[in-house]
C-alpha cells in the first residue's frame, strides 16, 4: 500500500513491518513511542477510524498496545503496535486527533492502568472509582475476596 510506503519513508528509523496473520491487515511496529501522535496525525487522513485498541499485558517486559485503524472506503486494516514499559506505562493520547479513541483510552486506563498524556478526561469508565486494582492485568487474580467485595457497608 502506498500509505505504508509513505509512512516508512517518513518514520524510517522507528517503523518496522511485521508479518500479519490476518487478511487485509498491515502490521507495523513503532519502536519510538513519542512518534505515535505524529504518526496517527499523518495517517488519519487515510485511515479515518480507530477500529479498536487492543492492549496485551506481557509481564514482565511490556504492555503491548495495538492500534487497529480502519477506513470506510474498503476493508483494509492498519495495525500500529507500540510497546510500553511495564513499570511505568505512559503514552501520548490520540483522543484529540481521533475522537473515537477517547473511550478506548479510558478503558485501557481503567482495566490496565495505562496513563495517557494529554487525554481530555482520563477517569475510570467501566468500574467505579473505589474499585481495587486493575483487573485485566495478568498479575490480577480473581480471588474470593474480590468476588465478595461489594463496595457497600452492609450490616444485617
Amino acid at each position: 500500500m502506498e500509505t505504508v510506503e509513505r509512512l516508512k519513508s517518513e518514520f524510517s528509523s522507528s517503523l518496522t513491518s511485521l508479518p500479519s496473520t490476518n487478511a487485509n491487515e498491515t502490521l507495523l511496529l513503532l519502536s519510538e513511542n513519542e512518534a505515535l501522535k505524529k504518526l496517527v496525525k499523518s495517517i488519519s487522513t487515510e485511515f479515518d477510524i480507530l477500529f479498536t485498541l487492543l492492549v496485551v499485558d506481557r509481564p514482565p517486559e511490556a504492555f503491548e498496545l495495538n492500534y487497529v485503524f480502519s477506513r470506510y472506503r474498503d476493508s483494509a486494516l492498519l495495525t500500529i503496535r507500540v510497546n510500553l514499559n511495564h513499570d511505568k506505562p505512559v503514552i501520548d493520547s490520540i483522543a484529540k486527533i481521533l475522537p473515537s479513541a477517547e473511550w478506548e483510552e479510558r478503558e485501557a486506563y481503567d482495566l490496565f492502568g495505562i496513563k495517557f498524556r494529554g487525554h481530555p478526561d482520563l477517569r475510570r469508565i467501566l468500574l467505579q472509582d473505589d474499585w481495587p486494582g486493575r483487573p485485566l492485568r495478568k498479575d490480577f487474580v480473581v480471588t474470593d475476596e474480590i468476588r465478595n467485595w461489594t463496595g457497600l457497608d452492609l450490616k444485617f
Partner: protein
Amino acid sequence: MKDSTQNKITINIGPVHPSTHGVLRFIVDISEDTIVKVDPEIGYVHRGVEKMAEMKNYNSFMPVADKLDYIAALNWEVLYADVIEKALNVSITPRTVYIRTIMCEIQRIMSHLLFLAHVGEDLGNTTLFMWGFRERELLMDVVEEVSGGRLAPMYMSIGGVYYDLTLSFGRRLLEVLDTIEHKVKNEYKAISYQNDAFRLRTVGVGVMSKEFGISHGLTGPNIRASGVKRDLRKDSPYLAYDKVDFEVITENDGDAYARFMVRINEILESIKILRQAIKEIPSGETKVKVPWFFKIPPKYTFVRHETPRGEAAMYLVTNGDLKPYRLKIRAPSFYAIQAIKDLLVGNKVADLVTILGSLDPVPGEIDR
C-alpha cells in the same frame, strides 16, 4: 443576553430508567429545556468478560459470547466461532455456512424489530412497542424450533452448529417472513413511519453528519443513515453473503427518522436474503470434528462481522495454551454511546430518549 449557565439544572437519568435500554446513566446539564452538557456513564453491567475469557477454555466461553449482546446473541456466537475457527484453520461445511447466514439474518430481523418497539416506547407509543414484540415472538418460535433456546440459543459450536435444521424449518420460516413483511409494510407504516405525530418527533432530530459519524467510529445502520455506504457483508463478505443478492440500505439525512428507516428497510432486505438462502441451502454435514479441549499456537487473529448494531470484532491473542491469552471485544454500541455526548448537546431534553433510542445501544456489549 443572560448567561445560560446561571439557571442550569443537573439531572441524572438512569441507571434504572424506563428508556435507557438497560442500565446506562446520563448526567445531563440542562438550561431551559436544552441540553448543554452530557456525561454518559457506563459499566453498570460490566462483568469482566475479557478476563473471563482468559480463565476459561475456548469452548467454555461460548455461552458468555452468547450473552454479550443479548438482543443479537446468534451474531456474536457466529463471530466467536469464526474467530476460533480462523485461529485453528478449520473450514466449516457449506451447509453450516448457510445455516449460520440464515441464523444471523433471523437475529438481525429480531434485533431490528426490538429496535422499532423500543423507539415506539421511547416516544410514548405503547402500541408500536407491543406490536414489535408480537412479531418478534414469531421468529423466536422459529429459532426455538431449531436450537431449543429463545434468547440465548447456544446454537453455534466451534466447527459447526449443534443441530441440523428441522424438516419444517424452511416452510415455517417463509410463512413467518410473509407475515412480518406484510405487517412492516402496512401496520407499522400507519403507526410509525407514515404517522405525522411520529415524524414530528423524529425528522430533523439528532442530525449526525457524515464526518461526525466517521470521526466517532460509528458503524452499521447508524452510519448508513448518514449516507456512508458501508456494510461488511458487502465490503468483505463472510459466510454466504457473497452468494446472495442484496442491497446496502442508506439514507442521507442522518437524523433519527433516517436511522429508523434504515432499520425498517434492512428488515425487508434481510427477508430477501433469507428467502434466497432457504432456496439455495445445500445438503450435507453440519459439523466439523473439533475436540473439546484444544490448543492454538501463538498468533493474533482478528475477525469482524456486521452485527445488527454495527461492526463487531474480536481480536484473539493466543500463546499455545488451552485458554486465550487475551480476547479483545470491539462492541459497536460502545462507539455509539461515546458519540452521544457530542450529539446530544443543543437538543431538547425530551429528544434525549429519541436520539438514544435511535442509536440502538445495548449495555451488555458496551460494558462487556
